[in-house]
């Protein structure tokens, strides 16, 4: 398959709550485990024989059902996902006798002193799944899941490496489409499509007409259209440091050195922290600066979902830190499902001009 066909397949995957790969999986009797948040390790679900499926609100026309349950003061991402759930759009998650529910208490600081708690939480989750579904998540299965998810990580890393070039063969809109799709379909099928895509991209001519290279960071973002609006102004997104983007992947998990669950836990817990984490802002800034340098970016566009409090704190802090560092920084607020508006486009244009681009 060629780049356009593969991107079109990924585009179909991300358009709504269901996709053809998911439907095939379910039709073949496969079970699906829905989850929120980058601190939930997909490997456990894969090892248990589930398709890990990251919940999002795509395909929700309006959030009225969620609004009624949660008030309009809760972020629109959550309200849209609740709306979809209330409308039965996630019923494929209930194709089991007794639906499973668990909540992971992830510590709010990625510190060694709190790691054991996180690891214990994963052990508890694993045990709950085993007990609920009457199955065994063996070390061997976990090792297999690590291998599968590492294969995805490697492909995403290769994709991102290509974006470091002066003329990246892929836009930010396309890259985010790919990384979102990675959360919604069987990973082996994703990896196969990625092999074809990467092969094609190595031959592809890159984008040259852009005015500036930017990193997009901030709160949850699973709407490539929003990036398209930014890129239409001449800014090329070269890395999306968001939950559905680079943040969910990172380096590969080491294989075979000790207990696989321990390795999975370390990988997740000590990933580049998101705004929910405290006592680590210097690490977040350092990682962001590294990304700016590696991807040769001209500036940072920070987008935050309205009513997202953790990113409200980081938005304030990043603005001042980047100002001090001399890294151009644009802060935007957005609502879920709303593409970049005229106002956003104007602000991006002004940002590019401010950078002298």
């Amino acid at each position, binding site marked *: 398959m060629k780049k356009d066909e593969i991107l079109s397949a990924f585009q179909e995957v991300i358009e709504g709550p269901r996709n053809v790969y998911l439907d095939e999986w379910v039709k073949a009797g496969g079970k699906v485990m829905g989850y929120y948040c980058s601190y939930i390790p997909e490997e456990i679900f894969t090892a248990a024989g589930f398709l890990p499926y990251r919940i999002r609100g795509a395909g929700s026309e309006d959030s009225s059902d969620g609004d009624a349950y949660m008030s309009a*003061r809760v972020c629109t991402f959550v309200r849209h996902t609740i709306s979809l759930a209330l409308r039965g759009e996630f019923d494929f998650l209930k194709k089991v006798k007794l639906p499973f529910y668990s909540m992971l208490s992830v510590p709010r600081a990625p510190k060694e002193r709190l790691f054991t708690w996180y690891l214990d939480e994963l052990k508890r989750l694993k045990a709950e799944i085993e007990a609920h579904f009457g199955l065994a998540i063996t070390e061997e299965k976990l090792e297999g899941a690590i291998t599968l998810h590492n294969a995805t990580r490697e492909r995403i890393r290769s994709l991102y490496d290509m974006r470091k070039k002066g003329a990246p063969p892929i836009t930010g809109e396309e890259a985010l489409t790919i990384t979102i799709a990675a959360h919604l379909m069987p990973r082996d099928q994703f990896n196969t499509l990625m092999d074809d895509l990467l092969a094609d991209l190595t031959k592809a001519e890159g984008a040259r007409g852009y005015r500036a290279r930017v990193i997009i960071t901030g709160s949850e973002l699973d709407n490539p259209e929003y990036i398209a609006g930014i890129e239409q102004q001449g800014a090329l997104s070269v890395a999306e440091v968001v939950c559905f983007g680079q943040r969910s992947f990172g380096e590969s998990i080491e294989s075979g050195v000790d207990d696989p669950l321990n390795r999975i836990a370390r990988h997740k817990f000590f990933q580049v922290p998101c705004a929910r984490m405290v006592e680590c802002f210097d690490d977040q800034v350092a990682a962001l600066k590294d990304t700016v340098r590696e991807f040769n970016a001209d500036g940072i566009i920070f987008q935050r979902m309205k009513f997202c*409090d953790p990113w409200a704190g980081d938005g304030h802090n990043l603005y001042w830190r980047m100002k001090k560092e001399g890294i151009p920084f644009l802060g935007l607020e957005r609502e879920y499902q709303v593409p970049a508006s005229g106002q956003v486009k104007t602000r991006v244009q002004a940002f590019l001009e401010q950078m002298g681009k």
Partner: protein
Amino acid sequence: MAILGKERQEDWEVVYEGATGLIDLYQEDPESKGMNAIVGGFRVLMDGMFAAMDEGRPVVWHNCGCSPELIRGLEGVQTVPIELLTVLQNLVGEVDYTIALIDEAEAHGVAPEVCSIDKAAVGTVLNDLYPEPACMLYHNTPCDSQIAAIKSLTELTKKPMRLMDVPYLSGDREVQYLAKQLREAIPFLEEHTGRKFSWDRFHEVCEESNRTAKYLRDWNELRRHIPCPQVSKLVALNTALLVAFSGDPEGTAIAKAFHDEARERIERGESTIEGGELYRAVWYQDPVWFDLQFYDWMESELKLVIPMDLFGYYAPEALIDTSTPESMLEGLARKDLRVLPMSRQFKGPIDYYIDDYLRMCTDYKVDFAIFAGHVACKHGLGGIGLFREASREADIPLLYFEFDMFDPRVTPVETIQDDITHYIEDVVRPRKEAA
């Protein structure tokens, strides 16, 4: 009293004089024992803070999810809750000063939808209105807005900060986890304050905390009396008491005043409402801090009393076992997890949140409930649908409105008054009459 040093700044002058004015005005009033005690307690706290600055004693900031007993285990260390100035401004009726701090934080880039008390805390720090901390000890409760605030305050001050991770559930495993963190925080506090932690002192502090808790527990019982013996606004002030005074003899004095006033008035057969109460309601979510006289209006105009609210409710798991260092740490962890208002209800599953509400409605024999939705409180508002369902099932009429507890510009007090008046006229009174 002359105020010394940096605290001469207008914001502190205003609250100090305001507190002094209230004490002068009401100290002889036997009906104001509880209010006098808390205002007086805050003046003592300000004196302590000013003295610490003058004497060069170390100061530790903490947030409202963090009960201060552990910090008090260090000799000579002054605790400062980051919400202190805002609470004082509103307590003495100087809300314009809070508004200025909120505006300043927003102008500095803090998002408008962050909680107003957290924005005001950032504004306070931007204005250099708190004594410089040796370090900061924060809990990740009660909400994400506090996370935004503590991250911003850490960035602004560049002072050492330690986070106590409070997990979502509140069982024994969680108690052990938090207790371990509290133990590990001791060397952090010692290092940055230069003061030694004393287990004997901590024992005394926990004993004091228990004395306060016993009064509050009994006071909660006394507030069940019909008619309600005391003014509604006292329950709104309980969280301020816990955050600022836990482990401090002043806290016990305030709790005792709350308790004694209620008991004495019950013994005298007095109702807080002249002519007798007509309606009783549980007030869930946040008090109208920006206008505490609003409660007087409810009582006099509507004959409506609030015997209990979310902030006044004192869960009975509060007593700390002081027999060993380990039991004290566990007791304090239990208090942080299961007792502090908001921290108890706003984390993890919604069960505590709704169960406490239903229990309050039953225990305090109310005619209806008021869900006063502080706009920034996504943790509370996020559960409104389930909350409504629970109210319907329990046949409790529920009034819901949104406002900002420290910023009258969002919903003016007159609008809140209209909402409550109409709800009583349209729903509560006909229902009572029909019964």
